[in-house]
């Protein structure tokens, strides 16, 4: 490993974080729901892929044909049955609801899949890399994930900007009541947004599962990375999410280059620094003259 390689690895890893963060950002942007179960839903995606690969015997990539529509349905039903009710009771209730969901999901996964560590097979591409020079190699799998992440964000961007569904979504996010007045079914829009969010989470979860092993308790870890990517990139901005993911990824790999133990820590430190700087910037000027009359 060297510094250049660390940065490149970090950028590629950022693709996975951005994918993980997209749905979190979308749900917050549209409904102001901070979905604490987001990482757990990504994990559910990984377990769905695991089930499909075990029972049907197709590759983890092909399993997406089943996992993604499944996740869309899970998201839609989740919104219509659970989140919609909690949204009606104020802003904090969804936070509690999704926290509860996080625990329920972890326990259900434990019940059905046991606490054993599982993994998804990334296939040949998992070990292949492109040797650019003696000091720089680019792993194909990570490059693929970054590419898919950019494609998903680009697709979402086009959906939001160019289609009637996108306009309805943005209008509802801005002012649900007024959107209703011009014929938009806000609840249906919310359900579609959650469906898309859960599908992107599941997609990220499947790639996460191919990259590293997982067990029923890793949902919150995935949530933290997604959350940090969203905050670093700026809440509610799709491309900001990609930037946030990449900043987080690079921080981690560069941190690990200094000392292997600094991998997660470096990411958290950068996240906290960005958060602090933003708070300072928002409060206007720092009062340097305090204490004086």
């Amino acid at each position, binding site marked *: 490993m060297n510094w250049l390689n660390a940065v490149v690895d970090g950028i590629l890893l950022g693709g996975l974080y951005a994918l993980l963060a997209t749905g979190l950002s979308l749900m917050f942007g549209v409904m102001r729901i901070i979905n604490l179960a987001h990482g757990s839903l990504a994990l559910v995606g990984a377990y769905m892929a695991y089930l499909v690969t075990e029972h049907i015997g197709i590759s983890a990539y092909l399993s997406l044909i089943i996992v993604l529509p499944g996740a869309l349905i899970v998201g839609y039903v989740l919104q219509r049955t659970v989140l919609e009710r909690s949204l009606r009771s104020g802003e904090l209730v969804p936070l509690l609801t999704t926290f509860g969901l996080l625990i329920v999901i972890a326990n259900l996964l434990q019940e059905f899949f046991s606490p054993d560590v599982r993994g998804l097979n990334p296939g040949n591409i998992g070990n292949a890399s492109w040797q650019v020079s003696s000091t720089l190699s680019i792993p194909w799998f990570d490059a693929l994930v970054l590419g898919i992440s950019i494609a998903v964000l680009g697709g979402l961007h086009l959906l939001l900007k160019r289609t009637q569904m996108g306009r309805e979504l*943005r*209008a509802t996010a801005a002012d649900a009541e*007024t959107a*209703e*007045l*011009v*014929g938009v079914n806000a609840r249906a829009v919310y359900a579609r947004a959650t469906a898309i969010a859960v599908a992107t989470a599941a997609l990220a979860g499947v790639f996460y599962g191919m990259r590293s092993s997982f067990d029923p308790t890793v949902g919150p870890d995935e949530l933290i990375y997604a959350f940090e990517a969203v905050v670093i990139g700026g809440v509610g901005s799709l491309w900001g999410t990609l930037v946030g993911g990449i900043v987080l990824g690079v921080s981690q790999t560069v941190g690990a280059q200094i000392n292997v133990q600094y991998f997660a820590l470096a990411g958290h430190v950068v996240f906290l620094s960005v958060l602090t700087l933003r708070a300072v910037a928002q409060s206007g000027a720092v009062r340097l003259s305090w204490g004086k009359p």
Partner: protein
Amino acid sequence: MSLLSVEHVDARHGLLHAVRDVTLDVAEGETVALVGANGAGKTTLLRTIAGVHRPSSGRIRFDGADVTRLAAHRRAKLGIALVPEGRRLFAEMTVEENLRVAAATRRTGPWTVDAVLEVFPLLKPLRAKRAASLSGGEQQATAIGRALMANPRLFLLDEVSLGLAPVVVEAMYESLDDLIASSGTTVLLVEQDLGRALRAATRVVCMLEGRVVLEGAASELSREQVTEAYFGLRATA
């Protein structure tokens, strides 16, 4: 038969009883002005008709069908369009996007983006501008245009002149008169300016403290009569 019937409707904001036992009929093609002092319940009544405020009792019929329990977006699809108080544009979306959101009603008719821009030519150079960057008059034109995009059968206008320069209001009402006359749309409008209300409408309904206290053809009511009802002078005298 009337296009809209409001039957004994009561509406509350928590403890505040904003609309009290209001019964009101609006016939197809009519232009009705709803006047009254601040807090008389006009805005709440319009919002109740549009479906964004739930009445605590009473019934609302539109074109014969009971719509009391229908969600706002379903009423919009039936042809009830409200230009809300304070305009309520989607600030981060462009003028054109604001207009096109209303395609959600899936109602077809004379009103398209181009038709709206014909009626409000001031919007033509602004169609790609963010709504938040517009002046008050431009925003109000966009808000009216957005409601028109739903090709409404019943057009509800809530204080479209509020906070606008008199010249702008004048121009706005001129285009409104034209489009009302040409499309035969039924209109229920809230207006603070009594003179304007009496000129624009065929019928005037005056509310006081949540109740309808005076109702009559605009041509038969004198300004004095309306003013009395407006301030509740008869009640105290």
